[in-house]
């Protein structure tokens, strides 16, 4: 399911993950774009490390050109840089519990798809598969004699990459082939902060139940979203609009001074939330303004 934000921004795909304690937690799946960016960052970091190793090897090989064992240095450095490139992902995903530097930078984590511990076999498998999924066709493209002379190599690599991309886009949890084999999933885990409670302790404006029946949970949360926006002209305009619409809809007849717009809306938010929470508590969930009490059992 895709949770669309009340203000129309599209949020990440979500799905529940069952904990052993029996409380489902919502995990967010990153966009393929986010994963790609993190991956590119990782490739850059590991390549940089590999190049540094290579340079050092070159330096040492140059200094000891005539000394026997150091004749091995350059090829050894080649090998080391190959290993650095390949061991990088495995090392960090084991050491940092499913995060590489790139993933950490963009708030992504690899977790076990069923909520269990991340096993070392799974980490190794998902990363070696990447070699087949991605690096191999890229290398094929790089070493191919050219687009004109060997169209088959290009076609093969292109088809392979397309097939791998399709797997990511078509599986419900956006899994790479490596995730399929490793039983893992990549989630977005940005740190969220506890925001202040918008409800006010005391109210300057008072609303009767008749006023509060006009709206439901959806409208309440849109209002919450707007009130939480940083203060700027755009927000002031939005608040003004919303105030006017609320006044019209609930039939508010005492004029509210312009400078008290925010107080009015905060009070309305508080009263509305108190009302809807009480209603929800007795089993009447007013989803939105179209809610109609069809049972006739609950007295207002």
């Amino acid at each position, binding site marked *: 399911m895709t949770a669309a934000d009340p203000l129309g921004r599209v949020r990440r795909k979500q799905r529940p*993950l069952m*904990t*052993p*304690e029996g*409380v489902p*937690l*919502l*995990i967010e799946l990153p966009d393929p774009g986010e994963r790609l960016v993190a991956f590119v960052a990782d490739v850059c970091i590991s390549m940089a490390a590999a190049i540094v190793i290579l340079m050092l090897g070159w330096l040492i090989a140059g200094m000891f050109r005539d000394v026997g064992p150091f*004749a*091995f240095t*350059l*090829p*050894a450095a*080649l090998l080391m840089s*190959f290993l650095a490139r390949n061991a990088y992902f495995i090392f960090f995903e*084991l*050491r940092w*519990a*499913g995060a590489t530097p790139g993933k950490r930078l963009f708030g992504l984590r690899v*977790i*076990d*798809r069923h909520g*269990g*511990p*991340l096993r*070392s*076999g*799974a980490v*190794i*498998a998902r990363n*070696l598969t990447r*070699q087949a999924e991605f690096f*191999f066709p890229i*290398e094929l493209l790089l070493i191919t004699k050219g687009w004109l002379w060997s169209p088959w190599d290009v076609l093969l690599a292109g088809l392979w990459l397309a097939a791998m991309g399709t797997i990511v886009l078509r*599986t*419900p949890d956006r899994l790479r082939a490596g995730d*399929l*084999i*490793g*039983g893992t999933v990549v989630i977005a*885990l*940005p*740190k*969220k902060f*506890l*925001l202040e*409670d918008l*409800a*006010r302790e*005391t*109210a*300057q404006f008072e609303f009767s139940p008749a006023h509060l029946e006009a709206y439901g949970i959806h409208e*309440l*949360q849109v209002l*919450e979203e707007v009130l*939480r926006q940083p203060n700027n002209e755009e927000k002031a305009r939005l608040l003004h609009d919303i105030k006017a619409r609320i006044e019209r809809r609930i039939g508010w007849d005492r004029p509210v001074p312009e400078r008290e717009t925010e107080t009015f809306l905060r009070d309305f938010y508080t009263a509305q939330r108190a009302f*809807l*929470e009480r209603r*929800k*508590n007795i089993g009447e969930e007013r989803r939105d303004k179209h809610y109609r009490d069809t049972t006739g059992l609950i007295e207002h």
Partner: protein
Amino acid sequence: MSAVTLKSREFRQERESGWRELEELIGVARTMGIRALSNDDLRRLPLLYRAALSSLSVARAIALDRALVAYLDNLALRAFLVIYARQLPVVDSIREFLARSLPRAVRGMRVHVALALGMLALGIVSGFALVNHDEGWFSVMVPAGMAQGRGPASTRAELLRVLSTQSQSGSALLTLANYLFSNNTLVSLLLFGLGFMAGIPTLLLTLGNGLMLGAFLALHYHRGLLGEFTGWVSIHGVSELGALTLFAAAGLKLGELVLFPGEHTRTDALSLYGPRAGEVAVGGVVMLLVSAVLEGVFRQVIASTDARLAIGAASLLLWTLYYVRAGRERKP
């Protein structure tokens, strides 16, 4: 002015300090590792985690403050990961994998391994029989890139030169580095990766590799070089063929999961049993690395056919012992 009572706000005020404390512990565990926590903190962590889960359940039921529910969801998930998805010590994980998981995974797929070995053997025998009968078959079974000039037209001396060529010692590791990108990597990836297609490409490729080896054997046999060639190829070939067998077995397992997912959906079947196949394929990578070292270094250094054969036989024995014996539960 009048006071407003809001259950969700009271609830938040009561529990907030616990959430903050949990957040702090998670922060320490994430940045400095779980070992940085004191004993007292370690005792508090699961309690706070469960309290956060219960807060989340309550908040979902009573609170309409979206930011609050989102925060609790995020907090509980991060705490869950600190507790259940531990950081793994790299060296220990790798030792555990080699000492236990890998040989167990291979034993768990012995049917697939046997099938792959059977296919390989069938290829070798048929390749040998065909080329033995008529050397014209050689070029059908061995692509030109692989043959590198060797073929029905080669003389005994030419073949012998290939078998005993020593490369410069300095470039031994370079050979090794090259080897890692070479044909074997491609073949093994295809063996494993194409397993998704019901395992059929895997079977055919295994057969094809067997045919190639059989053809080479027959070519050298005709020129009285069977012993030399066997030594030349077995020093690393045992590990290499072992690797190909493991890749093929893992590919066949994937094919089986796609064809017969049993009572699961295909995605679920893959996620449940796929990791096992993945581990076996990783075993193939390990064997390829060993074979690269053997080919890149030892074959260049050791020229005697007897010594080469001895190393080949020893590696066969060691690999077999490893996969059959290693990581078994000790009987009490």
